[in-house]
């Protein structure tokens, strides 16, 4: 018989308890551990509110808390304030505010959009901050340019890296005898999705976004890169290479998965995909680490059986590309009177492993550490998810890096500032929808997409500067 105990110490630490304990740690205590170099102690007499943009999630709040800790000590007249922008509105908001010459003073935004801004010379170079943060701190397998470097200058400081992986309900997969998802290729993935759809009532085999939005762009791009296809070729004057057999194959593959998706997938974006995972309406998905936090709160049975793997291999190329957002902090140049203060605050928080661990802890395992000392910090592993989801966490944090890719740096073959415009116009998602909604032939959709990409290239040659 199991002995019952009422001692709090013997209970498993829940995520909620862990986070509330974390929040209870005074910011002063966190900062107290940091031995500040002279540059971080420069004072500022400026006053006002420093606007910070971040994507939805608690981690932006943690970073802003850290910046405010710096402000309290060295610039008491200013306060950093977070403005959260949902993914699907970020491009519109960013562009309208930039057009009005009134952007936020500090931005954390998806890497392809940051690349566009840096190539348009709308960002402050941050090489001086990089020197303070430490050039040799990056985790193995990444480079500074992944976050945003252009023509020899670093414009973006790492916030995290964030890949989407194959998220799987292992209880369902095991029950149906569908094998080890880590060994799947595209055919196995489709077979698993079909089997789940046929055998499990009220459950879709796979949930992907097919709506006209960024999430669809990211899901499709990962498959395209696995197949060996790309949008542009940075090595050849950024020529459009989208009208290819690989694109056609990928579009046909998505179409072949569609019968095993929820019927509403054609309008799905980020939120709907997370919903379908957390509520148990889908057995497989492509997603970042975000559903784990929500499932732990809302659906413990789902949480217990969720596991993430690197994506299914393409049968011919063997590639398992993900869409990894090397998301970082950048400082818009127009009308920004707080450049020095933001740089100092960023350097302050980026040199504090305590703050950076706290950043990762705030939504485990959605935001992966970017510095070796943070990844190896023993306190990182104190998060309760490490007890049950260590393999998944390490897949997001470390093992995904070998398969990193994104639309802004396709197969890591070169940063491409055109990708931000491509996302702004939802060209990939529209291409997918031509096939999924309008029932176009994949080859025709690929041609349509290629024409749109060529238009983007033609209209934005200025972004490429001397590269073409």
């Amino acid at each position: 018989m199991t002995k019952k105990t009422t001692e709090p110490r013997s209970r498993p630490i829940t995520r909620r308890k862990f986070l509330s304990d974390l929040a209870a740690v005074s910011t002063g205590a966190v900062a107290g551990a940091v031995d500040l170099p002279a540059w971080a102690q420069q004072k500022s007499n400026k006053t006002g509110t420093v606007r910070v943009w971040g994507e939805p999630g608690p981690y932006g709040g943690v970073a802003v808390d850290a910046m405010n800790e710096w402000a309290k000590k060295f610039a008491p007249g200013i306060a950093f304030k977070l403005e959260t922008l949902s993914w699907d509105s970020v491009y519109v908001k960013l562009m309208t505010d930039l057009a009005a010459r009134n952007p936020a003073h500090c931005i954390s935004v998806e890497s392809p959009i940051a690349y566009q801004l840096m190539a348009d010379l709308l960002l402050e170079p941050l090489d001086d901050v990089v020197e303070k943060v430490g050039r040799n701190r990056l985790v193995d397998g990444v480079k500074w340019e992944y976050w945003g470097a252009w023509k020899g200058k670093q414009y973006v400081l790492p916030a995290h890296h964030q890949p989407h992986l194959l998220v799987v309900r292992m209880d369902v997969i095991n029950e149906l005898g569908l094998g080890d998802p880590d060994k799947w290729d595209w055919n196995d993935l489709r077979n698993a999705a079909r089997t789940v759809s046929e055998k499990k009532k009220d459950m879709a085999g796979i949930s992907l976004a097919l709506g006209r939005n960024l999430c669809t762009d990211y899901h499709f791009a990962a498959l395209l890169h696995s197949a060996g296809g790309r949008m542009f070729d940075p090595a050849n004057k950024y020529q459009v290479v989208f009208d290819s057999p690989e694109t056609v194959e990928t579009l046909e593959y998505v179409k072949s998965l569609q019968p095993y998706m929820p019927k509403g997938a054609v309008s799905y974006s980020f939120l709907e995909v997370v919903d379908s995972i957390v509520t148990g309406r889908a057995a497989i998905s492509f997603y970042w680490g975000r559903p784990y936090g929500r499932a732990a709160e809302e659906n413990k049975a789902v949480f217990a059986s969720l596991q993430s793997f690197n994506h299914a291999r393409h049968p011919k190329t063997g590639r398992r590309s993900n869409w990894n957002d090397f998301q970082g902090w950048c400082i818009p140049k127009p009308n920004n009177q707080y450049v020095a203060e933001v740089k100092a605050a960023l350097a302050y928080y980026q040199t504090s492993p305590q703050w950076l661990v706290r950043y990762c802890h705030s939504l485990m395992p959605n935001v992966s550490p970017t510095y070796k000392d943070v990844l190896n910090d023993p306190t990182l592993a104190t998060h309760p998810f490490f007890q049950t989801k260590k393999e998944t966490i390490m897949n997001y944090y470390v093992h995904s890096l070998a398969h990193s890719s994104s639309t802004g740096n396709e197969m890591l073959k070169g940063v491409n500032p055109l990708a931000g415009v491509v996302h702004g116009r939802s060209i990939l998602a529209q291409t997918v929808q031509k096939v999924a909604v309008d029932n176009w032939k994949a080859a025709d959709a690929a041609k349509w997409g290629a024409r749109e990409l060529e238009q983007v290239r033609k209209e934005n040659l200025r972004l490429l500067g001397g590269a073409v």
Partner: protein
Amino acid sequence: MPFAVAALVFMVYPVAEAVRLAFYHYNPLNPDGTSFAGLDNFRALAADPLFWQSFRQAAVWTVCSIVLQTAIGVALALLLHLPLRGIAVFRGLLLFPYIVPTVVIALILQWMLNADLGVVNWSLRGAGLIDESVYWLASPGLAMLSTIALNVWKYTPFVTICVLARLQTIPLELYDAAKVDGAGMFRRFVDITLPQLADVLAVVVIFRTIWTFNKFEEIYLLTRGGPGTSTFNLAIYSFEQSVASLKLGVGAATGVVMMGLLFVGSLVYVRVFRFDEESAQ
């Protein structure tokens, strides 16, 4: 004087600026690259299949919305014109859809029409009318129907109020005389009520057509123009060109085309209903 200033600042200037912009290549992120475009932006519209698709869909959305609003609005006005006890309460309630912000309605409707969790499918399933979920916002045809339904629900009260006001001014003697002549309910409606309502209906239809054709927020909030581009109208198209594609010239050119279409449409409508002749008499 204040009116003239307000009109200049808030009406004339924006329109003039939009027309000017329609003849320029202008990317707000690259203002130094602004150049005169001549008719390029209009040529771009003519060559873009999505523009024509948006135009067709805008026509469908506008015609369906207006026909339904008018038919339901007149029917409701006739009902509310009946001398029943407590009818004033219903007349008051009529304003409800009109005063609730569109964003609230659109978000509520999104949930109501949610295929998996929405009350609409739940009710239809409960009543035995459907076996499988209906994807109201994820099927092209149904998404258009849903946006039309939202527009009709929200703006039918406007039609009802205008028609009801006119109904209350029709002399009862006309109906009494018709009754004496043996006219039934249908004949009285066709021969007395409808002709008396013609003027107000013409005004209501013109205004509703202009407003509906230009509508942006209802479609954008409910479907964002999707799935695919199946609920794009010209306002959404203009927004996408201006903001997502940063082609402000093309977006402005779309606005100019819309303005021209509505101007011509209004002229034709006024001509058909012979307002000019009536005012001359």
